[in-house]
């Protein structure tokens, strides 16, 4: 991708990454980071046969393969001053606080989250999963259409 800033991912990227098998290549090819709230949210994924598999995101953090980031209270406050509605959850909010304050990138396919980035004037920091997977060597296809740029991009 040619960027040195970490790319934060939302809980669904972690969950679907493990479900569809792109998690290992993703964290091997990019500097992936999560906020504490996303670690708490990504508790399990469901295999295609419906079985729940627990996720131990902390083990990836402890092994230094995924970065754990946390905004300061001042960074949360700075975001809250310009984004008062409650359309996003704590994990997305903490991630956006880091995007705003530290210029991190954020990978999500959630349209309200992408729209919030556009409203905040930080849409250029949004990275669709399609871009991350296509930049891997070898490139990987997206597992679901919602992860394409065209699907999630604000109209």
């Amino acid at each position: 991708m040619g960027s040195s800033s970490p790319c934060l991912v939302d809980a669904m990227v972690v969950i679907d990454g493990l479900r569809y098998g792109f998690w290992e290549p993703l964290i091997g090819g990019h500097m992936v980071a999560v906020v504490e709230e996303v670690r708490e949210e990504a508790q399990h994924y469901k295999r295609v046969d419906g079985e729940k598999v627990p996720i131990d995101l902390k083990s990836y953090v402890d092994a230094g393969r995924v970065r754990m980031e946390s905004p300061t209270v001042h960074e949360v406050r700075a975001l809250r001053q310009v984004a008062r509605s409650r359309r996003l959850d704590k994990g997305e909010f903490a991630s956006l606080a880091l995007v705003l304050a530290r210029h991190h990138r954020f990978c999500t396919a959630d349209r309200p989250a992408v729209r919030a980035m556009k409203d905040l004037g930080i849409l250029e920091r949004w990275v669709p999963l399609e871009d991350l997977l296509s930049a891997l060597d070898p490139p990987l296809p997206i597992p679901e259409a919602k992860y394409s740029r065209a699907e999630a991009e604000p109209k």
Partner: protein
Amino acid sequence: MTQEAVAEKIGIPRSAVSDIETGKRELSASELFRLTELFGESLDYLLGLEDDQPEEELVMLRAEEVTSAARAEVNRFIHRCDEYRELEEMTGEVREADLRPLRTILSTYEQAWKLAEDERQRLDLGWPPAHQLLRVLEERVGVKVFFLPLGASIAGASIRSRKFGPAILVNRDDMPGRRVFTLAHEYFHLLTEGRIAGSKGPQALHVCTPKNTDGKKDRADTLADQFAGRLLIPADELVEQLKSFQKADRKIDWFDLIRLAQNFGVSTQATLYQLAARKIITWEAYKQIYEDPAFQDRIVKERREEAGPEPRRFEQLAVKAYLMEEVSRARLAELLGINVADVDEEVDRYQGGEGRRDGIKLSLPR
């Protein structure tokens, strides 16, 4: 709250709490979010971003004489009501309350009973009223209802807010029969707004603790109990059922008492109380039955019985807001108190299967 308690709740050492308090260590965002949950306060309040004029209902709450645990729960309830209103606005389903508050001052049991009869008819609660009350209050009257786990600190609360309208909080930890009684009790507070002779006076917020600190019940709560009993157990229906149950010796047995409670959808305890209050049995008989260990055992069993009806509208609006892409998937999970990986299943439950469907055209009478 002690430093130890805060440390345990937010998962950091006690020394770290001390360092945060003295400014030696900065609070992290995760710890800040956990504090909002612990105290039931909004993020804006803890960030010092609340408007100069705090919300009216929070001012009222701060003036209430309740424990810190109860205050945190009512805080949480008020913030949930704010979220409810926001969801109504996002989905275009803002509902004006069809509540007719009293303008006169109530002073007698008879007035409370009359109000119960009038409301049962106005709301067309049918029979048994307990089975319809929750749905009618949510859907027709426009009352926001939450069942939250309140432990032993609060039985219920009610509020008339200029911002989000009327709302009722019921203790989820109570058994279903008790919950519906609390719902009716709190509805009385919404209707009367504290206009009760010998009570604290007009109130927009009412927090009901199981017992007052002096052990006495406020007059408003006594009348609210009378209202709830009459609303949920109509006098004529009670007499008709008792007539059909009684034997030649004009007695009913315990089985009939329990059946009566089940038929009315209220607790056995409330049913027994109503029999005494309406002079169908003597207070002596009431005391004798109530203090019987087998009756106490029945009360404990009722607590374990299957859950009764649950408020639905808040969850329905949250799912609708998600389907309209007004809230994120993770936010929906947060609002419903589920894991983000389970959102699809929950949404399917509400919309009857996967995928989006075309709208259904209606032709309603004008």
